[in-house]
């Protein structure tokens, strides 16, 4: 019974934290982009606009909920749900601290990939169910993009798995303990730098974030797959996108930056700090780089990232063979 209670408590804590972070990530993004573009950003609701996400949430809840006349009702209603569930259940296996993980699955990494690969259904079904050409094209584009980049994403982390000798995220963090020559932390980002870069680029593409935000390229596709969505259903897609962003940052931290490890500060703080750096990077990217063209996007994924990921894999394998 104690076990059940502790688990439920952990789940509630993590979900609360993630949903709060999702809300304030929108604030952070608007503030940072505004700063970069020399604007003020949200500043009216509360001090520094800090109550803006709450005001937005209340607004979204009270908006009219429209279902297009010719939409496929069931699929239209199901799509936002399918999109947000994978984004949230990823956090079940991520170690936030030495003993703070909801459940340590022995194939944790694979679990994360299996679950996140399902997020694409939300988008495809939203595009199809809306019965609108913009939404359909956005959905198709996004599914092609996500399936393509999933390959290099999956291949980029195999090096990490080979070094840790385990698929469990807890073991992968443990394997990054200690330091080289007393100063350099034993994080995977150093021996697996190529893998790290590939992981970062592919996950940006998986997240549909700029510069890979073609599924919602507003100049061509209005808003892509969520064109027809309004009110809370739209908010769910939005939440899924930001929760996915936090999930990808948490995965990058766990796999390449030693997870919760670090000196002086408590582990959970280290973890959150590293995750925050990645989140900031994603926002920064959006404010800085222009969008890819569609053929460039596909060419880059298949002809550059995938071969590079394979090269990284072979180099890692060769290095490990020589060392052992």
């Amino acid at each position, binding site marked *: 019974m104690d076990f059940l209670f502790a688990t439920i408590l952990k789940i509630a804590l993590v979900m609360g934290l993630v949903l709060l972070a999702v809300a304030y990530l929108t604030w952070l993004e608007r503030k940072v982009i505004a700063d970069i573009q020399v604007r003020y950003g949200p500043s009216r609701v509360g001090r520094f606009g800090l109550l803006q996400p709450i005001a937005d949430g209340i607004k979204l809840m009270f908006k009219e909920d429209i279902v297009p006349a010719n939409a496929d009702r069931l699929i239209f209603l199901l799509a936002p749900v399918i999109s947000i569930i994978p984004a949230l259940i990823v956090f079940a296996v991520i170690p936030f601290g030495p003993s703070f993980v909801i459940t340590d699955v022995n194939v944790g990494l694979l679990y994360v990939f299996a679950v996140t690969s399902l997020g694409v259904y939300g988008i495809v079904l939203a595009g199809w169910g809306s019965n609108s050409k913009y939404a359909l094209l956005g959905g198709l584009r996004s599914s092609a993009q996500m399936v393509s980049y*999933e390959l290099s994403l999956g291949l980029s982390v195999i090096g990490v798995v080979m070094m840790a000798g385990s698929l469990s995220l807890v073991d992968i963090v443990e394997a990054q303990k200690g330091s080289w020559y007393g100063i350099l932390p034993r994080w995977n980002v150093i021996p697996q730098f190529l893998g790290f870069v590939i992981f970062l680029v592919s996950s940006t593409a998986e997240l549909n974030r700029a510069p890979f935000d073609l599924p919602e390229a507003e100049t061509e596709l209005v808003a892509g797959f969520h064109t027809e969505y309004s009110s809370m259903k739209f908010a769910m897609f939005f939440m899924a996108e930001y929760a996915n962003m936090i999930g990808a940052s948490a995965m990058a931290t766990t796999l390449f930056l030693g997870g919760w490890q670090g000196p002086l500060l408590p582990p959970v703080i280290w973890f959150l700090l590293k995750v925050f750096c990645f989140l900031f990077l994603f926002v920064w990217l959006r404010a800085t780089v222009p969008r890819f063209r569609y053929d460039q996007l596909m060419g880059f994924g298949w002809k550059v990232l995938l071969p590079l990921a394979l090269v990284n894999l072979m180099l890692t394998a060769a290095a490990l063979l020589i060392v052992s």
Partner: protein
Amino acid sequence: MEWVLFLIFALVAAGAGVGMVLQRSPIYSALCLILALFAQAGLYVLLGAELIAFVHIFVYAGAIMVLFLFVIMLLDLRPEDRSPVRSNPVGVSVGLILAGLLLAELALGVGPHIALGPRGAYDFETVRAVGNTQAVGRILFREYLIPFELTSVILLAAMVGAMVLAKRKLE
């Protein structure tokens, strides 16, 4: 507890399988198939084969079925026409006989082995002890290395073939 979960997963898998056949709209058929794949993954987890379960979801539900949906949407397939079914007594009786034969064959061929077949080297406890991924890796790269490599070559050939067929004009 495990029995309850097994029952739920088994019923969902069977129900979704039937639903896939009965649906008129190809999209709903594909969705039913995805649901069936999920229930199957649940059964794998109950058997202690987490690796197989998540690979199953990753590969089938996460990649292959997405491409299925993709093709269905691009072809813009309409739901099947609901034509009245005319039952042909000859067809029905032949079908029934064939189905009966198949069932008898299954019962005779597979039935006795369910209870009496020899236990494999990798039972629940061994897999627990060696580790899920390690057990699969060992079997795949030691005992079945050659079939595994052959399968890869066949898949590669199929891929190249598909590309050649799709690109009629090769620059």
